[in-house]
């Protein structure tokens, strides 16, 4: 058994509860348990690209320093903080590399952390749960734990931007990733390829420029459907929201009838690995995936 210091980030507690609960459950089954770190704060969701802004680097650094302390009380835990959300992952990874390489940034930040009697020792690595599954658990073990292969599920693996960009944050090859495909395949699903696997969903423009997100989502979903997908698998709560909610609103406008349900990769794992269905919180999705799962006799 290995325990990992797990940083949830805000969304896993609000509208991506199914993502968190399914991840915690399968992590236990696979002896790679995610244990929530105490006293965490929002990472800021995006890292600043301005070289002269240290303020926006404080929150991620505080998380790294607190997780480092958390690791000490865990079992067999490597010096790694694990995330589920791709935006948290990217933000923490970029800031971690940035301050590790630049003492002139870390020093004033550590001065701020002193107020809470904390100091970041540059001793942590940031990992996305997908990396743990691929590199530490291994697909073989996952395959062995499958009780109900996802037969009939034709999934389009949508990476979005933050799992693959920028270089400091990527968890796989940025033009030819395979981690989501390999994982889905080991669960027994069929893989559908679409060239728009990392075509940005429009991200935070959903707040004030919804039309942009609309166009992006339409293109992404249409391409997935044309290639034969009946579901989409993602790792980012913002991608998930945009793809899910915008399809629903297009349906309301009469633009689309056939909707693709959106799954977090951990929800697919939970179904295949025989966890209780209610941990997936499908009732919070805009497009309820249960219809398809029932049709395929997976629940």
């Amino acid at each position, binding site marked *: 058994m290995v325990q990992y210091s797990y940083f949830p980030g805000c969304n896993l507690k609000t509208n991506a509860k199914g993502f968190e609960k399914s991840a915690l459950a399968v992590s236990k089954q696979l002896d790679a348990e995610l244990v929530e770190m105490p006293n965490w704060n929002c990472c800021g969701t995006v890292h600043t690209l301005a070289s002269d802004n240290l303020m926006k680097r404080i929150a991620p650094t505080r998380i790294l320093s607190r997780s480092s302390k958390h690791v000490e009380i865990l079992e067999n835990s490597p010096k790694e903080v694990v995330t589920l959300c791709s935006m948290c992952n990217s933000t923490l990874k970029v800031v971690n590399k940035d301050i590790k390489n630049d003492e002139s940034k870390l020093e004033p930040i550590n001065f701020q952390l002193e107020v809470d009697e904390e100091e970041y020792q540059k001793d942590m690595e940031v990992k996305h749960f997908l990396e743990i599954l691929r590199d530490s658990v291994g697909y073989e073990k996952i395959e062995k734990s499958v009780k109900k292969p996802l037969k009939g599920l034709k999934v389009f693996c949508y990476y979005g931007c933050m799992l693959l960009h920028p270089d400091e944050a990527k968890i796989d090859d940025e033009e030819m990733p395979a981690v989501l495909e390999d994982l889905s395949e080991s669960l027994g699903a069929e893989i559908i390829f679409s060239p728009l696997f990392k075509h*940005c969903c429009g*991200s*935070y423009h959903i707040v004030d420029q919804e039309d942009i997100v609309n166009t992006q989502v339409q293109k992404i979903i249409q391409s997935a459907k044309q290639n034969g997908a009946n579901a989409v698998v993602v790792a980012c709560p913002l991608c998930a929201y945009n793809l899910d909610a915008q399809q629903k609103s297009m349906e309301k406008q009469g633009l689309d009838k056939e909707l693709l349900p959106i799954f977090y990769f951990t929800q697919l794992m939970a179904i295949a690995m025989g966890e209780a269905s209610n941990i997936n919180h499908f009732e919070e999705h805009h497009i309820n995936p249960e219809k398809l799962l029932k049709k395929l006799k997976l629940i």
Partner: protein
Amino acid sequence: MSYGYIKIGSEEKAFIAKVEEISGQNVYSCYQCGKCSAGCAFSYKMDKTVNQFIHLIQLGQKERTLDANTHWICASCFTCTVRCPREIDVAALMEAVREISLRENPEKVRIADLPKESLEKLPNIALVSNFRKKTG
């Protein structure tokens, strides 16, 4: 095609220096190949494509740069950054221009004007990142 007179004096040079300072990039590294614009998922919405926008910065044209919508359409997806053959962090140039604009006018998005219903239904990840990118 229209031609305009372009002056490159101290104001223009100061703008270029500011963009370079905030972004940590050398804007003259860009040789205008256009790969960034070709790969940007939002080019169709931009009134200046990404490389045209960088050209304006290279010429120190502050007003024309800030008047373009390019940096507000950009969603910081980093596709251009990972693909630029000159290894320019193009997304950081976009951020530098947003920063320059926000340091003068801090409210590209006015939070008070957003409908209550959006604030309630949108995931916090969307709101926080939006406000980080569009308010100063």
